[in-house]
């Protein structure tokens, strides 16, 4: 009789607005001036030609693309207002639209805190499998962005194995960064086998890709080539840009959003020029720099505010958001990882961002993942989703009859009203300790990190993800180039 999740993905946010509608319009207007005056640099010949053929002002020598507001708005018009990202099981499907909120993991870390020793070491393909499996078991994490990098593999074999390691360990949606056009093609190829056919895959895409844009204002050659390949697969795509306030973007938060908006829209535009109607997300990773020493900040409060503001910008363009929250600068799962992660995740959830990634497992400014942190973040994200659901006020919840029935001096534990509400009104933390001091002490006086690690170990031992059909798996391993041969 397992309890149903009362606060699942897809609840509607919007209780918090980081910027007003009129400020969103001002940021839009400012971005259009940047598009027109400075433009963006596109270091890929094919892309430059596409921009040119569709009427943008292209300087082939300087590789600069400029455009005016009318052109930009006309080209993004075909981007869908809702994007469906599916799981291998229907219960894990995500419907990204309006202010529906989903939150999940991010990557790509190159290190992991070892499950047994707790020491930081380079992550492996096995860690990709285990992190995916852990996320599959955690109810408040709604999707998987592939968390870490298999350092032991040749770079040319990373794409196919990394995606496969994730897919076979979770039936939640799998999105991931990519490293080569061949990798993208091969992943799409075997994903179609898993889905049954290419049509079935595109109807219910259980995987999607991420290809990046560089701040300030650059579409890099390799990433743009991969972006083009990814669009050709027909699978959904995020084209994030990660400006850092004060170093690769203006120090003002509004200025960072202006530049980010130009970059994010550039990704959307290219996908629409290549394939009008292509499922793409308005993809944002606005971050900051700590100007005391110049360090990159993935867990600053300003980052949370800017990412939350992306909900308003994306509504202005009517394209679903991909934003970033929940990461932190801490080197261990500790107080810092908790408070930094909670602050930005809560802001983004309450603002109604659609696809909030990086929000579980990542520490160390995104350079490291921690099994314990996933489990702690599962609690944090559950709390965020509880807040998104809000306080329900209706005749039954006002409980006048109940209060009168119990009367002065009574108690509510024995009233059926309690049973009606106990599963749907409260979020029950799994890692938080709510015992009396004595019980906590006698059970080993464990701190949050120890309790989280214990739960992580238990879930990794017991959880059984939905497997891939054996025949299909064998065919993939046999026919896809570069695949690791032994999987367990």
């Amino acid at each position, binding site marked *: 009789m397992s309890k149903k999740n009362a606060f699942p993905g897809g609840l509607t946010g919007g209780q918090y607005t980081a910027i007003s509608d009129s400020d969103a319009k001002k940021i839009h207007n400012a971005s259009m001036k940047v598009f027109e005056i400075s433009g963006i640099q596109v270091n890929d010949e094919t892309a430059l030609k596409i921009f040119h053929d569709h009427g943008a002002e292209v300087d082939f020598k300087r590789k600069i693309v400029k455009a005016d507001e009318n052109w930009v708005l006309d080209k993004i018009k075909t981007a869908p207002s809702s994007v469906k990202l599916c799981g291998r099981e229907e219960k894990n499907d995500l419907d990204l639209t309006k202010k529906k909120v989903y939150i999940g993991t991010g990557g790509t870390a190159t290190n992991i805190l070892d499950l047994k020793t707790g020491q930081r070491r380079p992550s492996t393909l096995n860690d990709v499998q285990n992190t995916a499996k852990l996320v599959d078991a955690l109810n408040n994490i709604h999707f998987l962005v592939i968390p870490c990098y298999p350092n032991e593999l040749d770079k040319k074999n990373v794409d196919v194995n990394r995606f496969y390691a994730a897919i076979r360990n979770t039936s939640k949606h799998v999105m991931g960064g990519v490293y080569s056009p061949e990798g993208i093609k091969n992943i799409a190829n075997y994903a179609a086998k898993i889905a049954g056919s290419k049509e079935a895959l595109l109807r219910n895409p259980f995987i999607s890709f991420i290809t990046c844009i560089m701040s300030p204002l650059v579409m890099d050659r390799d990433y743009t080539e991969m972006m083009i390949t990814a669009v050709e697969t027909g699978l959904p795509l995020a084209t994030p840009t990660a400006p850092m306030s004060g170093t690769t973007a203006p120090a003002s938060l509004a200025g960072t959003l202006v530049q980010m908006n130009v970059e994010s829209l550039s990704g959307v535009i290219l996908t629409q020029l290549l394939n009008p109607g292509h499922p793409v997300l308005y993809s944002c990773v606005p971050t900051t720099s700590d100007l005391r020493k110049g360090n990159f900040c993935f867990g600053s409060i300003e980052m949370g505010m800017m990412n939350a503001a992306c909900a308003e910008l994306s509504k202005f363009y009517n394209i679903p958001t991909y934003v970033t929250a929940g990461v932190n600068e801490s080197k261990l799962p500790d107080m810092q990882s908790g408070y930094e992660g909670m602050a930005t995740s809560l802001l983004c959830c309450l603002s109604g961002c659609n696809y909030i990634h990086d929000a579980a497992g990542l520490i160390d400014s995104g350079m490291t993942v921690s099994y314990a942190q996933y489990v702690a973040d599962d609690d944090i994200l559950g709390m965020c989703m509880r807040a998104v659901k809000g306080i329900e006020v209706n005749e039954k919840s006002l409980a006048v009859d109940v209060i009168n029935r119990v009367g002065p001096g009574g108690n509510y*534990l*024995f009233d059926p009203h309690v049973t009606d509400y106990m599963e749907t009104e409260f979020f029950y933390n799994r890692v938080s300790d709510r015992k009396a001091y004595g019980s*906590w002490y006698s059970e080993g006086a464990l701190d949050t990190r120890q309790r989280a690690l214990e739960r992580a170990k238990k879930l990794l031992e017991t959880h059984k993800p939905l497997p891939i059909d054996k025949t299909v798996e064998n065919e993939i391993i046999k026919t896809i180039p570069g695949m690791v041969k032994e999987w367990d």
Partner: protein
Amino acid sequence: MPAILEQISEALIDGMSKKVQGLVNKAVEEGIDPKSIINDSLLVGMSEVADLFQEGEMFVPEVLVAAKAMNKGMEILKPMITEDDLEKAGKVIMCTVKGDLHDIGKKLVTMMLEGAGYEVKDLGVDVTPEKIVEVSKDYKPDIVGMSAMLTTTMVSMRDSVSALEEAGLGDTVVMVGGAPVSEKFANEIGAHYAGDASTAVKLANKLVSK
């Protein structure tokens, strides 16, 4: 074992008092021994409830509703059996100590103990050491359970334990709990400590089996 006994257990776990009553009546009509109805279905169901509660699968209000269903079933069967037929886990006196009026924690422990098969006499709140001694002499409990919510009333626990000793009832097993109480304090006054309702049941089981 007749299928109906299993159905009673299931209805009990679901907290359906009326259904439990109906099924118990039906089982009696079918000629099943009342002792078997108690031991092989009601107590089996309650034991499952205790396990589910421990695992976090059942919540406090659900346990209370299940305990109520159990009691409804027992009401029908009690007149059909002798006192000796009833396998009791033990007898317990519960109270909130002198000067303290808080009782939700104590009520919770009481319900949980009853659910686990204990016969519990609840003396209420603001109970003096004298009253505890008086009832203990008469009722002969296996355990005296005391609750306090305030640091200022916690001392009444010490007084109550002393009063029991002075009355020659020094062998009485005392169990204490409540927000300000700790393992250390319990040891100091010669009592046993439980941090919450579920550990209270576990502790009681341990204490009576000694």
